[in-house]
């Protein structure tokens, strides 16, 4: 077992890892930037080392400084958390070359699943469904028509150099394909200087569903069910839950088997997540794999009764997967709300500044993972997530009601937060019924497009 671990992260996840270490009897070293002097992870770690100026490019992303900090504090392992260097294969290699255990998968596994095209190919080889589409660029409309016929309408025409919705067209038949093909090319040429487009099947009203994977270094690999992360705003998850209201036993088994097979094909070790889009008919398509612990891991922990961060540390130290984890069964319903320092009334613009009063909710079935406190100043340099509120209930409806109750108790003054917006979601009839998809947030923010829908 490790004697001392360095946490190469900040905020709530740094705190989460320190808590796991304390319970395992492992000493902790925090690293911090000049902006995080007063942060809770700095106060609660056994040692803390300043590694640079506030921008993360000058601190939390500086590999040499973090490795120096690890050497002067003489740690056995580094936990990267999520974001920053968590999915950086080079960082994992540097750790290994310095004889420091990187708590996560091997650099090879990070590389194999980190590149989107390589991961898609890996999934295809492992027999995991991928979103049908063209192999690379579609040069002519004839070729486009052929592909659309093969994969079936509706399809999406997307710019190869694309992003931000430009050069993108959803088409429903041959006529609109020909029209959309040329329009998308012209738009892509104008926006990116590259008119290349490709075609992918359009998955209508999808759910974003991901499977939690856990594998040890002795070849034992299991999945711990799914999380439904369909409540997103601009591709950023806001609410996550386990289990998914869309899921039944058969689909869970089928998707779980696929996930285990894909992870095994790259000899995956430690915690990871495989993301899918699932349509309303239960057809699922592989999107990507995240080779790290996820922000939303607590909902899985609550439902499956395990501690994923502790398990990560144990696995990295060479231990076998714990039996209670390998045989865990879902036995309740958990929802997580991400609380961000943003103003929901002003297009969710960041709202940094000093927290005046902080009072966290409590009571049965309520968990708060957060690094903030009264008079703590939220820095404008980092991500705006300041807290994760997790509520558990024996059923989905009791978990939803508990979340609405806990959000009502949560008091953060001095800055704007997304708590009022989260309360709105918990009270929304469609959410309460479990009837939603990835378009839910846009729909409740601006109900007009729904009425105009053809």
């Amino acid at each position, binding site marked *: 077992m490790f004697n001392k671990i360095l946490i190469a992260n900040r905020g709530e996840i740094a705190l989460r890892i320190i808590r796991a270490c304390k319970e395992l009897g492992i000493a902790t070293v925090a690293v911090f930037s000049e902006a995080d002097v007063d942060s809770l992870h*700095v106060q609660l770690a056994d040692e803390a080392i300043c590694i640079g100026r*506030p921008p993360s490019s000058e601190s939390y992303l500086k590999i040499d*400084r973090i490795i120096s900090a690890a050497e002067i504090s003489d740690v056995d392992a580094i936990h990267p958390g999520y974001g920053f260097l968590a999915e950086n294969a080079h960082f994992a290699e540097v750790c290994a070359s310095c004889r420091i255990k990187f708590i996560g998968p091997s650099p090879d596994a990070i590389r194999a699943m980190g590149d989107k095209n390589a991961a898609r190919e890996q999934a295809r080889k492992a027999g995991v469904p991928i979103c049908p589409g063209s192999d690379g660029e579609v040069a002519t409309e004839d070729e486009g028509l052929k592909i659309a016929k093969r994969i079936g309408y509706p399809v999406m025409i997307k710019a190869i150099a694309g992003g931000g919705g430009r050069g993108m067209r959803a088409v429903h038949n041959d006529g609109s394909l020909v029209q959309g093909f040329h329009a998308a090319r012209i738009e892509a040429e104008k926006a990116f200087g590259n008119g290349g487009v490709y075609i992918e099947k359009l998955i209508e009203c999808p759910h974003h569903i991901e499977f939690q994977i856990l594998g040890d270094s002795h070849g034992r690999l299991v999945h711990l069910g799914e999380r439904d992360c369909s409540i997103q705003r601009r591709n950023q998850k806001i609410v996550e839950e386990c289990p998914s209201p869309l899921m039944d036993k058969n689909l869970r088994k089928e998707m779980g088997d696929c996930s285990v097979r894909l992870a095994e094909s790259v000899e995956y070790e430690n915690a990871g997540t495989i993301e899918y889009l699932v349509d309303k008919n239960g057809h699922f398509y592989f999107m990507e794999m995240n080779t790290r612990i996820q922000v939303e891991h607590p909902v899985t922990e609550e439902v499956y009764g395990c501690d994923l961060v502790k398990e990560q540390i144990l696995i990295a130290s060479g231990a076998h997967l714990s039996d209670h984890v390998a045989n865990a069964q879902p036995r309740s319903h958990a929802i997580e709300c991400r609380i961000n320092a943003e103003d929901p009334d002003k297009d969710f613009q960041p709202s940094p500044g000093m927290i005046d009063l902080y009072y966290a909710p409590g009571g049965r079935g309520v968990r708060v993972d957060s690094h903030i406190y009264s008079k703590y100043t939220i820095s404008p340099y980092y991500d705006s997530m300041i807290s994760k509120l997790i509520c558990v209930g024996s059923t989905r409806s009791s978990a939803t009601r508990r979340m609405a109750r806990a959000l009502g108790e949560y008091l953060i003054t001095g800055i704007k937060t997304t708590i009022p917006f989260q309360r709105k979601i918990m009270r929304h009839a469609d959410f309460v019924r479990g009837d939603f998809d990835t378009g839910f947030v846009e729909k409740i923010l601006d109900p007009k497009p729904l009425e105009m829908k053809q």
Partner: protein
Amino acid sequence: MFKRQPNISSYPNKETGPLELKDIKAIIDLMKKNDLAVFKLEKEGMKIELEAHRHPVPLVATQPVVQSAPAAAQVATPSSTPASPPVEPKAKYKEVVSPMVGTFYRAPSPDSAPYVQVGQDITADTVQGVIAEVLAENGTPVQFGQPLFRVK
């Protein structure tokens, strides 16, 4: 891949705020010149408060104090409040701080003479003067921003 990576460019900071960094530096210089402890300015859409700290504030029990070199202070604008650690004004002394994390060695080997001694004249791009004090112990770990020398 890096979904949770902070997007710094999208956040306002003091360099891009209504008041430019060079203006703040000029105010700090004026404060020092006239030995002012507090400076406040409020106008439409902007508020600035500068406070000079006479004593460094200890941060973490197990680690030495971090200070950054130039006198900076709390700057508040409507949309941003960068948190910079309080800084001691150096009327007489200038501190040379560690630019990296690592082990501080005063000499190239245990038998050699130190690179610099107290009382020695030094000339570099950024500092000029006489070494008044060596603040870090030879062979000990230092963190980013930790004071190493005091120069007169």
